[in-house]
């Protein structure tokens, strides 16, 4: 049985359609990556899956008792709220000190256990967020743009860690990402979203799909986008009416 499945789901925000007739399913143990331009409904889709949004039409079905580990894109913690890393790991479920320190050690963050969350660097905080999400042994790990604020080697190391986690925990992973080159090669399934599902399938299938090329440019010849990292390349825009995210990340 699928962990989560969306059937013909539509969501409108105000008068605009954010998602239109989207059907996807998340299978146990699979890494699924959602790519798409800004405003294509990626975050809306994640919020549907965690239950923060209700669909205007269609169905969202979660496996009974589904345990989700969620790593948000950013977490602004009010300066008035005192919170050590160890205390943060015990929210919302309490864990024993042994479990929390083991989780921090696994995440390579053992030395910051008693620091205040607010005093952490971006990379440290990302590790803590991931450690917290993994403490409950989730069946589904959800990551919203997890490498925002990390540099290229940091992002690559982070995705390597995600693959490790999937291997050791056997959990499914659903993530939204801008780092198309790195992330797609690590995925079992890629969903290209632009209000609707443009195309989906294995990274190779998606990368060579005409819909994907239309969104992300044909200049990289599809599959090349997976493996080759050009710093300055020309895109041809004759078929492309969307602003695409690749450019911003290739500078």
């Amino acid at each position, binding site marked *: 049985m699928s962990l989560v499945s969306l059937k013909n789901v539509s969501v409108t925000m105000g008068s605009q359609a954010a998602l239109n007739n989207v059907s996807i399913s998340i299978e146990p143990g699979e890494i699924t990556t959602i790519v798409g331009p800004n405003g294509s409904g990626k975050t809306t889709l994640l*919020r549907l899956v*965690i*239950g*923060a949004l209700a669909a205007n039409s269609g169905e969202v079905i979660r496996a009974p008792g589904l345990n*989700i*580990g*969620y790593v*948000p894109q950013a*977490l602004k*913690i*009010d300066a*008035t*709220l*005192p*919170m*050590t890393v160890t*205390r*943060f790991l015990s*929210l*919302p*479920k*309490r864990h024993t000190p042994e479990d929390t320190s083991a989780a921090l050690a696994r995440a390579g963050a053992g030395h910051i256990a008693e620091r*205040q969350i607010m005093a952490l660097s971006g990379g440290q905080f990302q590790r803590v967020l991931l450690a917290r999400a993994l403490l409950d042994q989730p069946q589904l790990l*959800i990551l919203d743009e997890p490498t925002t604020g990390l540099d290229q080697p940091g992002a690559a190391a982070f995705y390597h860690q995600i693959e490790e986690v999937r291997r050791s925990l056997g959990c499914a992973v659903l993530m939204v990402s801008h780092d198309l080159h790195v992330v797609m090669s690590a995925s079992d399934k890629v969903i290209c979203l632009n209000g609707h599902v443009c195309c989906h399938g294995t990274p190779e299938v998606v990368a060579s799909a005409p819909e994907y090329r239309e969104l992300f440019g044909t200049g990289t010849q599809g599959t090349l986008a997976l493996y080759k990292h050009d710093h300055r390349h020309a895109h041809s825009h004759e078929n492309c009416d969307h602003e695409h995210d690749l450019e911003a990340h290739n500078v």
Partner: protein
Amino acid sequence: MFDDFMIRATLAGLGLALAAAPLGCFVVWRRMAYFGDATAHAAILGVALALALNTSVFAGVLVLALLMAGIVTSLSGRGYAVDTLLGVMAHSALALGLVAVSFLQGVRVDLMAWLFGDILSVTRADLALIWGGGGLVAGLIAWRWQALLTATLNVDLAWAAGINPRREQQILTLALAVVVAVAIKVVGALLISAMLIIPAAAARPLSRTPEAMVIFAALAGGAAVLGGLQISLFADTPTGPTIIATAALIFLLSTAFGRVIRPK
């Protein structure tokens, strides 16, 4: 032992300080200070209505505070900035309440007592209400503690864990209304949010975890009550404002102390 008015006043103040500590921390963390003001100011209207209808003031204040909190919650996110909306609501409610009180003919209303509290006239029945209501609030927050904290950190973190942040907000709203109804006799409508915010703010520099902050807030609130009562007795000053002034002094001391032990 409840015969002595000073003992009743002390117990009333301590009961309020205990309930205000956990709620006050959430008011500070979630930036609900104005929300607390609006709800507390609506209490005066509740007092006027209760006296006009000849019902319990506690019930009148509770209903009006709940109503006000409900209106503010449902209006926010409909085109007005929340602070503007709360500013309008808080001061309108206070003005409307004062106008309503002036219509009460034949009833002698000690307006000062409702605005600034009258802790020295607390009866045994008041004491039962204060500890009953305070216990209810403390119990409610203790029960929902982990969920409330998660929802305060981030709503999506809460949703992903199966916690509905809107329900947690409603629980805090209910707790706030009860505290307002309980506190009006002790510190008065104008100083209720001070009793929520100042002890919590005083606790912040000394705390490393949310739980520690609640404990320090309760200690600061309790010390303000004990100190304020004694000072007002010796200096013959109004008791409610003296308690709040003492709390402010504790806030200054703890902030200075915080700077010393943590220079950054």
